[in-house]
């Protein structure tokens, strides 16, 4: 089972990649680990005439501490994120999320930039990226721009990136003290993809009152999004069981759920509320230390 024929180009710099994208336009696709793209090319759901390999570009992978934020290169693999000490210490939610993407072989090849740019509705990272309030950096012919996570995911396999742009890095603001996080996922048993996935980040003040809370939902809907009603219901409250339950019940407010052979719309909504309760409960427990 092979992809349709294509021409292969290897970009050695971001500028070369952007020039190739400009040259071949809609006929071209960027490839990194290829674990989202190659499967759909083999199924002939995608048949780009030109494949631009960006994996040999220097400086696009790796994780660095920039003071008030952690910066993750787009080519960083899921496995590297799962094992990285900086991520595990400062952004455990991201390591936790990376560890449940696909399987070990997939995590060795797949990249965070590729997964985010591909924007599969059932991908894991979008929930964490939303809950961590990340900023995604895109470089195109007009230079660099930042896209906030909340503006990035638009629809099935559709992001705010233009066809001329390359996602280069993900910037995540560091979390304040007394912050806890958690990712909960109901995985499809065959594929490992999220039927529903919920990431929660909760910051408590000295009195145990919720000072900040962000909840990201993936899998349930075509484009991952924040659970705004849950967040506002919990803000300023004592994070006890009743308050968490009440807030979690609002997680699916305004969602247009997906329905497919894996899960009905009703089931997805119910599971999403349950996962939200679990994610918030675990995040609060961790915030308390």
């Amino acid at each position, binding site marked *: 089972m*092979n992809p349709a024929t294509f021409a*292969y180009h290897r970009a050695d710099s971001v500028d070369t990649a952007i020039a190739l994208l400009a040259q071949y336009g809609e006929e071209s696709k960027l490839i990194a680990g290829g674990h989202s793209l190659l*499967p759909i090319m083999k199924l002939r759901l995608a048949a780009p005439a030109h494949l631009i390999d960006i994996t040999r570009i220097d400086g696009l992978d790796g994780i660095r501490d920039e003071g008030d934020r952690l910066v993750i290169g787009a080519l960083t693999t899921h496995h590297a994120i799962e094992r990285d000490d900086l991520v595990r210490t400062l952004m455990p939610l991201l390591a936790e999320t990376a560890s449940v993407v696909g*399987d070990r*072989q997939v995590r*060795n090849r797949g990249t965070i930039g590729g997964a985010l740019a591909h924007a599969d509705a059932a991908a894991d990272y979008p929930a964490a990226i939303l809950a961590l309030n990340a900023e995604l950096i895109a470089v195109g012919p007009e230079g660099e721009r930042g896209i906030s996570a909340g503006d990035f995911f638009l629809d099935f396999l559709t992001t705010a990136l233009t066809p001329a742009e390359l996602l280069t890095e993900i910037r995540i603001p560091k979390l304040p003290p007394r912050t806890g996080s958690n990712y909960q996922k109901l995985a499809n048993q065959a*594929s490992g993809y999220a039927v529903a996935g919920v990431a929660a980040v909760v910051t408590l003040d000295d009195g145990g009152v919720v000072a900040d809370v962000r909840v990201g939902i993936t899998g349930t809907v075509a484009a991952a999004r924040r659970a705004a009603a849950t967040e506002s219901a919990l803000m300023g409250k004592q994070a006890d069981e009743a308050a968490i339950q009440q807030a979690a019940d609002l997680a699916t407010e305004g969602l247009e759920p997906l329905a497919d052979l894996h899960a009905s719309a009703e089931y997805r909504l119910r599971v999403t509320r349950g996962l939200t309760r679990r994610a918030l409960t675990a995040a609060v427990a961790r915030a308390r230390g």
Partner: protein
Amino acid sequence: MRVPVTVTVNGTAQRAEVEPRQLLVQFLRDDLGLTGAHIGCETSQCGACTVLLDGAVIKSCTTLTVQVDEQAITTIEGLAPRGTMHPVQHAFWEEHGLQCGYCTPGMVLSAVALLAEDPHPDEGEIRHAIEGNLCRCTGYHNIVRSIQAAAEKLAAGAAPTPVNGRSSPTT
């Protein structure tokens, strides 16, 4: 349009001109005759095509040959000198870690990569590490036991053993 590549396979540099859409598993099996990497699901689920890329397990059905240009691949054939078994292979033999054998090359390579990174994994870590390798004979218990036995062998400094060495099997 074919693309020139140089891929080090089991320690030998292989130069070839390949179609960009050629999958690594096709390069290994069809061009090099290394049929240890199996073609199973072809959708990056089953792990029968698992090989090592610079020591890390990958699925060669979801990797293009051109993507591994100038990199090093190890297949099951390259684990131990001809006529001998790697300690992990030996442990699979002793512990009955295979039935039909289709998943075995991938399972063994996943075990080798795991034990290189973590010489003393617990059962949960072993099962997590072989998540991407499906055994349709459902012989997972013996596979886990094999990997545990392999960990002990490697910790004791085991070397490759002759394939015909009859000393170890217990049955």
